[in-house]
Structures are given as C-alpha cells and as structure tokens.
C-alpha cells in the first residue's frame, strides 16, 4: 500500500532537498497519490473532521492561554476578562468550549463507524488501539480543560473525579493527595491541570500522527470490508478524498459554528457561570455530556471501587476488541446478526448517556445497570459468540464488483 514511491522532481531546489530529506516524495505518496478504496462513504469523513477539530482546539487554546490566569482567585475573573475585554475573546472562548464538544461528536461517530464496519480487525489492530489511546487521552484533556474556568461545576467536577482514586485500597488516599498537590482541590490542583491541559494536546497530536502512520501502512478499510485487490479498487487520495473531506468539514462546521454563535453555552452548565465555592455544593453534579455514559456506569455499581473499575474497564476493554470479535467478516453489511446487535449497542450507549444525566436513583439506576451489563456483554459474550454462530451474507469478490452491482 504505502511503499516508498520514487518520484522524479523537475525543480532543482526540490531535487536538492529531496536527495537529503525525501519529504516531497512522502507528501506526494501519502497525501496525494495514496491509493484509497473508491467506495468510502461519508462516515469515513469523520477522521479528517476530528483531526481538524484538534487543530482548532490547539490554535484557539494557544491564544486563550495568552489571556488566562491559572490561579484560584484569578481564573474566573480572567475568563470574564477574555469574554468582555479581549478583542474577539468571546469568540475564542466559545470556539474552544464548543470545539471540545464537537471534537467528541466527531470522535464518537468515527469510533462507531469503525465498530460497524469492523475497521479494528486484522490487519488494523494497532491502528485501532492507538485510536483507543487517543480517546482516553482526549478524555483526560477535556476533563482538565473544564476545570480551568473555575466555576462551580469545574470545581465540583474536579472534586468528584479526583476522589474516585480514593476507592483504591491502601494507596487510594495517597494517590488522591498526590493528584491534588495538597489536602483538597485547590490552587496546586488548578495549576497542574492547566499545565497538563497544555501538554496533552501535543501528545494527542503525536498519537494522531502515529494513528495516521498506521493507517497508511495497512490502508483504509471500506464499507464492504473487502481487501483492496487491484488498482481499479482504489482512487488517489487527492483530489477525490481531499475535496470530499473538505466538503464534509464545511457541513460539520456549519453545525459547530451554529452553536458557537447562537447557543454558545447550550452544551455546558449554567451553574458554571457562578464562581467555584468549596462551601456550597450544587444540587446536581454532572459532567459534560460526552462523559455521561461513563458517569452512568460509574454510578450503576453500588460499590465505589467496583464503579471505578467498571468505568475504566469500559475504556480498556476497547483495546481487546480486535481479539474479542471472532467473526471473519469485517463489515456489518454482510452480518445479519452483527448488525442487529450493533444497533442495540448504540441504543445502550445512548441510554447510558441519558441515565448519566439523571440522579442515580429509582428506575434510572435500574436502566443504567441493565445498559452497563449489555455494554460489557456486547464485548465479552455477544461478539465472541456471534462469529461462531452467524451465517454471513454472500460477499462480492472485489470492491469494484461491489460498487458496480449497486449501479
């Protein structure tokens, strides 16, 4: 797929550099000529969209840091300073705050796409696992970023999440104090969260580089889940997919910027416009929407340590997915049972999201427990078994055949 393409460049300067660092042939080979399956649908545009959101977050974040002050007595004021006194500060702040949400929207769709079309299966296991690590790293980044404005939900979210680590026996208390840098969530906590919130996006960028590298070694999966057999199955990345991705990015931005300009705090919490107050606990402490499914799993388990293990387990289990799914067929297009259970899994995740937004009591607690059980059963029971009992539909021999049979 990748190989080292040899190109003859006419421009003498380009040739001179190329002989010393083959950067032009890499760009030509990987970003322009890179053979890409011809049948990718619009679900495949979300990888590029997610990468674009990371760039938006880093650029807006770097400028916000020029005006933000990471100190418990100044952080909230400095955010209001950005909102009121910095030229277009309100725009930077809302681009960044909503950018986090839309980064997660893109990544969640990207992950479900990989799940549906079996993009994690051989030979793409490492590609998938790097993706899972990116997901976990961006969750940590987003959590710490939400603490920085130092509003009520920032503060109490930090208290609840850091306290989770106290559930671990023997070392729990020590870990929590080490995270806090003291005996409560306070200035040292805010400052280290700020430092890490600035560091982790660059780690993310490096991981994304590895993710794309792994992608370019094994090549794209595709909606039919069939290996590329010949050149006729593929199209050069440019202009076919560069232009298609750009079009998709623009549509995505229309929605994203619609929120930025017309409902900038719709996805947040009103109470976070009140400054952090350690003496007054908000009535409901809930994380940002993108953590609600994990939050529901945490609270579904009556035991604190159990809840923490289940919550982290729900992420770690994704690393083992390539070996838990025993089906030889990648795409759910050809898996009649796999398709049904995939959609049940999507419903379970959405249900967990709703349950996470409600107080953990009564019927919602039961719902959260059932959905949590299904979440784990999907990976540990259903996917391993389905591969053995399911009869896949007949598959076309090549991508070209699949494409032509549609027309």
């Amino acid at each position, binding site marked *: 797929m990748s190989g080292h393409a040899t190109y003859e460049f006419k421009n003498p300067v380009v040739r001179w550099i190329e002989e010393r660092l083959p950067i032009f042939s890499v760009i030509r080979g990987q970003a322009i000529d890179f053979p890409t399956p011809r049948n990718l649908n619009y679900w495949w545009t979300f990888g590029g969209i997610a990468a674009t959101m990371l760039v938006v977050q880093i650029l807006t974040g770097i400028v916000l840091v020029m005006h933000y002050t990471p100190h418990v007595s100044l952080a909230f004021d400095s955010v209001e300073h950005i909102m009121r006194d910095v030229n277009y500060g309100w725009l930077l702040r809302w681009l960044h705050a909503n950018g986090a949400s839309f980064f997660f929207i893109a990544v969640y769709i990207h992950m479900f796409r990989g799940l549906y079309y079996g993009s994690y299966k051989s030979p793409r296991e490492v590609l998938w696992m790097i993706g899972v690590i990116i997901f976990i790293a961006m969750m940590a980044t987003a959590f710490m970023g939400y603490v920085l404005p130092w509003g009520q939900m920032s503060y109490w979210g930090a208290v609840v999440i850091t306290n989770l680590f106290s559930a671990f026996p023997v070392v729990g208390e020590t870990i929590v104090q080490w995270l806090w840098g003291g005996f409560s969530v306070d200035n040292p906590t805010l400052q280290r969260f700020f430092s890490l919130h600035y560091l982790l996006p660059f780690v993310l960028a490096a991981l994304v580089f590895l993710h794309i590298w792994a992608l370019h070694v094994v090549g794209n999966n595709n909606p039919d889940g069939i290996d590329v057999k010949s050149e006729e199955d593929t199209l050069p990345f440019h202009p076919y997919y560069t232009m298609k991705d750009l079009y998709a990015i623009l549509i995505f931005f*229309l929605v994203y910027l619609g929120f930025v300009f*017309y409902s900038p705090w719709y996805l947040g919490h009103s109470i976070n416009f009140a400054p952090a107050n350690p003496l007054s606990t908000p009535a409901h402490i809930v994380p940002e929407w993108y953590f609600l499914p994990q939050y529901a799993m945490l609270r579904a388990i009556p035991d604190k340590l159990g809840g923490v293990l289940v919550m982290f387990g729900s992420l770690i289990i994704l690393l083992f997915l390539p070996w838990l799914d025993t089906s030889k067929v990648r795409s759910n297009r050809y898996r009649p049972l796999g398709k049904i259970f995939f959609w049940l899994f999507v419903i379970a995740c959405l249900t967990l999201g709703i349950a996470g*937004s409600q107080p953990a009591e009564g019927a919602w607690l039961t719902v959260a427990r059932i959905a949590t059980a299904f979440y784990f059963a999907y990976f540990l029971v259903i996917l391993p078994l389905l591969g053995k009992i399911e009869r896949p539909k007949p598959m076309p021999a090549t991508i070209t055949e699949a494409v032509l049979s549609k027309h």
Partner: protein
Amino acid sequence: MMKKILKMLATAALGFGLMTGPALASGGEQKNAPDYDFSFEGPFGTFDRAQLQRGWEVFRQVCSSCHSLKYLRFRNLAEPGGPEFTVEQAKAFAAQYEVQDGPNEEGEMFMRPARLSDAFPSPYPNEEAAKAANNGALPPDLSLIVKAREGWYYPWYISPFIKLVKGNGGAEYVRALISGYEEAPHGEEKEGLNYNPYFPGHWIAMPPPLAGEDVEYLDGTPNTIEQEATDVAAFLAWVSMPKMEERKKIGFMTLLYLLVFALLMFMVKHAIWRNVKH
C-alpha cells in the same frame, strides 16, 4: 420569518411538554418562570436601548444597594450593543460614585470619583461585610446572573429541545423572581426568610426588592412592578452577555459564507466524482 418558525416550534414543544408531564418536571421545588418575549431572543434579536437604559436606573437605584456588578465598567454603558448612553452620560454616571485608589505619594489609599475605566463599585467592602448586613445571606454578584440561573425545568425527553429553542430562561427567572413574591403558606412563615415560588426551595433571604413606582422613568414608561422587573432583567441579560449583538452579527455572516463555500465544495466534489462509480 426565522423567529416565527422558532416560535412555532417552541410553542409546539412547550405544548407537548405541558401535556406529557408537568408533574414530572424535575429540578427541585421551583415554579417555572412564565415565558416572556424579550427583544434580544432569537437569532436576530437585539437589545432594546431604551429598555436597557430604564433597567440601568432600576439596577442602580434599587438592586445596587445590596448587589455588586463587578464585571461592568462604566465605559460599557456607552459601548455599542448595550444601553448606548453617550460617553458624556456614562462619565456623569461614573462621577456619581466614589472608588478607592492609591496608594498616593504619601502611601495613603484615597477615594476619588469613578472614571469610565472603573468597574461599578460594590456596596460592601468584602463578603463578610455583605453577609453581616444581610442576616448572614450573601447577595450574589449580578454580572453573570442571567447566564448562571435557569428559568424552567422540563422532563428529560423534552428539556433539550425546549432549551435549544427558548434558551435556559435566565432573564425570565430574574423577571419572575423579583416580581413574583407571594404570601407564605399559612402557618409556614420563616423568620428572616421570604416566600417566593420561583426560588429553588421557595425560601429566599432577599426581601421583595420592588413594589412598583420604585424609580421615575424619564421616557414616560409606566413604572409598574412588572415593567421594572422586565427592564432590569433585560439590563442584567446585557451585562451577562455584552457581546451578544456582535456575536449574532458575525455569526450570520460566517454561516452565510460557510453555506456558500459548502455549496461550491459540493459542486467541486460532484464534478470530480461524476465519472467514478462509488
């Protein structure tokens, strides 16, 4: 047109919400604020200058005796997108307040009349003083109150849609709260607390701030309690989001630009892929 469609959607959504479960409404004991059609709602809504100017009078003559407004600077009063007083008017307002400055050459702190660059001075020197003067209750700063409070709570399956169309109802909450005090239910009176159905938990330390005819409106608007409450809620909405008009204006142009760009890209994409079966 857009506003009309949104309003219809809101009404439909609200009707559905009311039909299916007022009993289910969560969020503690708190009565939903009545919806009010503020001029700044909707994608093209702007502030009503005269209303913000009236609201400013209500704030400074009534609210400011207990509440601070620390993120408002006097210069903001003359900036575009707000009450848009003239710079002279804003200077004159500032000059009526004293702020602490210093230290001077002798090392002493001193008081001087406020300037345009000064923040609106707080009524109390610190939180403890504010509590001591108010029976132990702290009057919150009002700079962000409209964004920090919500006016209505609906069941989970309808709330996200109502809030997307109508917002969180912070301005409606302020309006309903300060004009919506009621007699405490018989035999349930609480010492030093007042009954207000719109306040979470119903018992609020703040005594009714408005009675009607609290301020003299120079523009001849009748100074009823509802009018005063509405005006000051609008004023505080502006203080919470002073860049709202700029935001909506830039937003409209940005989305229009993106829409045209996306249309062009669609045509580019279509032209490139036209002869490829995929």
